[in-house]
């Protein structure tokens, strides 16, 4: 079963969102679906947390948003990575790598 976002290191969710958007502008639902599909449902982001993250990232200038028209012809808010977002993605990815390595080092200790 999927884990709760609380198990994710703070910042990992941001890294996931930023990474997803590095493939191109998407709306929130598409981000959520993309992560789910990519991880074959292992990783399911809570929607509320996703949107909080999106709005926070936008306020930090790592994302920008605009209203566009979705595949089914509805108005949807699209998010896009800024230059600052790309830098932030690199930093968050490094942090994640470091964190995962540390946890593994504990788990593998005998």
């Amino acid at each position: 079963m999927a884990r709760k976002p609380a198990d994710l290191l703070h910042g990992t969710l941001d890294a996931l969102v930023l990474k997803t958007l590095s493939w191109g502008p998407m709306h929130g639902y598409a981000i959520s679906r993309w992560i789910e599909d990519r991880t074959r449902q292992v990783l399911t982001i809570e929607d509320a947390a996703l949107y909080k993250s999106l709005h926070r990232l936008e306020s930090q200038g790592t994302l920008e948003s605009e209203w566009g028209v979705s595949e089914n012809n509805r108005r949807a808010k699209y998010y896009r990575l800024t230059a600052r977002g790309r830098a932030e993605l690199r930093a968050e990815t490094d942090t994640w790598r470091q964190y995962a390595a540390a946890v593994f080092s504990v788990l593998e200790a005998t």
Partner: protein
Amino acid sequence: MSEGSGERRWQRLIRFPFRGRAGIAADVDEEFRFHLDRRAEELRARGLEPLAARDGALGRFGDLNDARRYCVALDARVERGARRRTWFGDIAYDLKHALRQLRRAPGVSLVVIVTLALGIGATTAIFSAVRHLLIDPIPVPGGDRIYAVSRVSGDGSMFITPRGEAVAAWRRGATSFEHLGTFTTTERTLSASDAPENLIAGEISADVMPLLGVRPLLGRAFTNDDARNGAAAVTILGHGFWKRRFGGDPRIVGQTISLDGRPFTVIGVMPRNFSVPFLFGETARIWLPLSADPSVVGARAIAKLRPGVTRESAERELSEIMRSDPVSARSAGEWKPIVRRPQDYLGTGTRDTLLVLLGAVGLVLLIACANVANVLLARAVARRREFVIRAALGAGSGRVVRQVLAESALLSVAGGVLGLLIAWGGLGLIVRIRPQQLAALDEVRMNPEIVAFALAISLVTGILFGLAPAIFATGRRLQDPLRSSSRSSTAGAGAGRARRALVVAEMSLSVVLLVAAGLLVRTLVAMQQAPLGFDPSGLTRAWIILPAERYTNVQQRTEAFGEILRRVRGIPGVEAATWSMGVPPDLGITIGTLELEGRPAATEGNVTLQFNAVTPEYFGILKNPIRAGRPLSDRDSAAREVMVSESMARRQWPGESAVGQRLRLSSNGPWNTVVGVVADVTLPSTGGAPFAGGQVYYTRFNAGFEEATLVVRQTTGAPGLATALVRVAEAVDPMIRVREVNAVGSLVQARFAKERFNGILLTAFAVTALVLAGVGLYGVVAYSVSQRVREMGIRLALGARPRAVMRLVLLGEARLTILGVVLGLLAATAVTGLLRGMLYAVEPTDPLTFVSVGVALLAIALVAAWVPARRAMHVDPVVALRGE
């Protein structure tokens, strides 16, 4: 990706106006609703009932309300920041874009910037001058409450300084003033063995510095004790003098300098540019304390009114107090106290001059603005396609307007900055050529208000003329250029008309300015060429004063003057020297009854005569030719010989020789015999007209006074005399004063100063206007040629000769010029009447000036049109027909 993002950025930037809080909440709700709907769809697709799908979507979402609160609060904060950032970001983006656009057309940009700079520079300089002279002449805090206090005669014709007793009584009793000070100037000689020097000393009472809100840069200010009888002599050095003579050494405070042979302790140094209002161009180098004692005669009074006290109430109070002074009360009917601002001292003539200059500079600015509008309009037409494409890509008309405004603003700011530089230089020029009447101009500075004024002009100009093309560009007809590929469509017809009208206006305004300048230049030339009756080149005059207490009788004075003259003649380069009472252009004037022997007395009533008391050598030294008879003999006044001017001789003794006739200037006085007739010495400002009453020369009363004017003629190229004369005087007696050493030529030139000032400035403005109008015409013709390249190509291809094509262009634009010139000449006839008071020997409708201005303008216009027309002649039909 980058293409798309650029466009998206564009759209993002035009998201106007900003959302309110309700809008933000609605946005978040819509975003969430979209998400929930999609999620529900997904669940339905997996086979859930619609209701269950909705609940499922909500359940998956998590705490919806918390997320909503969080996002709305965050977005609101972001929005507030963005409102600021986006604004600046957009400005930066617009400016960057504008800079690129302007760099793409450097010629056009340069023309606009220089044009604006000239207009703004001239306006700012003249505005500064006028502001200083007429609006804010005393630039110190509370300077608008500072007045000169003097007395005016009952008929309002004469102003004199108040009596010392009256000032003392005012100081004791008047409540209208914050401060009441007195000041005067004297000339002093700085005795220094290496370089003695004459200085103007400003003498100020202890109240003057606090009145002006000034403290010394170094040391202390004067106190009332400094001016007491028997107090140690002290001085405060002027800033410039301190720098020049003492290298700005602060240790000078406490040391002594010697003035007129007496030691003065330096107690301080004045701040830079310190001066007292109402000195009118007298530049004091050092400052001395002036006693507040009523016995001081001839000191001028300066007062700072309390806030809220009117001029009238102050004068009323002064009158009342003056009546309590028994001496003043006796003349109360004849003299009334009056307070005046510096601008009250400007004559109406001077004020007219300023207003004419202000008008002229306004015309220059108008022309500059017309030119800028012209160029920007032309560009807007050329860029219609660009704007239309932009609009098609989704830029709102507001965006395009903003874009064009940014370009204009950039141009105007650049023009404004360059204009400030021009104004700064121009102001320096104005100060250098100012006439005596405008001495107050020496204190003109560029102040922040004036800088703000210049920037405001440039911005308003930019916005005004940026807006016209922008509105034009986004007008209703915005759509057609895309449909019709041809650039020579009727699209620019309206703008073309506007631009031709602008050129006609520019032409006619230039004509007005040129005519005015031409008239003033002719006045100046007439004055410069008028015969003076003597040769001022190489002449120097100096005023020599013997200390009265040491030279009490004629014998002593004769010896001293004789010794001085002997030594002066020995100075290398001195050809000749003599004494006289005065030297032109400063001759004495006497008002009296002229009686001629053998004629009925007092036929003419009172006459006004110029007179001088001279030695026999005087006429030779001045090269003032003797027309008949002989010079005065070198005997004392007992001989009662006189000489008269040529015009006077002709008028008083028509048809007979004046030599041998006798005249007297008061009934019952002794008769004087006319021994010779000399050429009239004319005042330059009358342009060579002889002095109406005539000129009479007496034999110089031998050393009758302790003061005399020394006249020296030097060989050409000899160095200045000032120091040599001071040395000579010191060698004879250190107490002898040498004052007002001036080249006579410069005194004569000073009499032209006002006319030269007007002439130079108006000519500068007129030439500027002409250049601007030429550039404007060039722009119009060049543009119309570029628009008609296809047409020319067709004509040439059909066999038209190149010359014929060029003629076609020239003829087309010649109409504009002729129309402009005719309108301008008509306007000029209406306007030049205002100049009448400034003209001499030239009528305001002087045909020569009008004709030459018309011809000159046509010639310039021809050149301006010829350059682009030649290009039309060389159009390559193949290239032209191939299209764009």
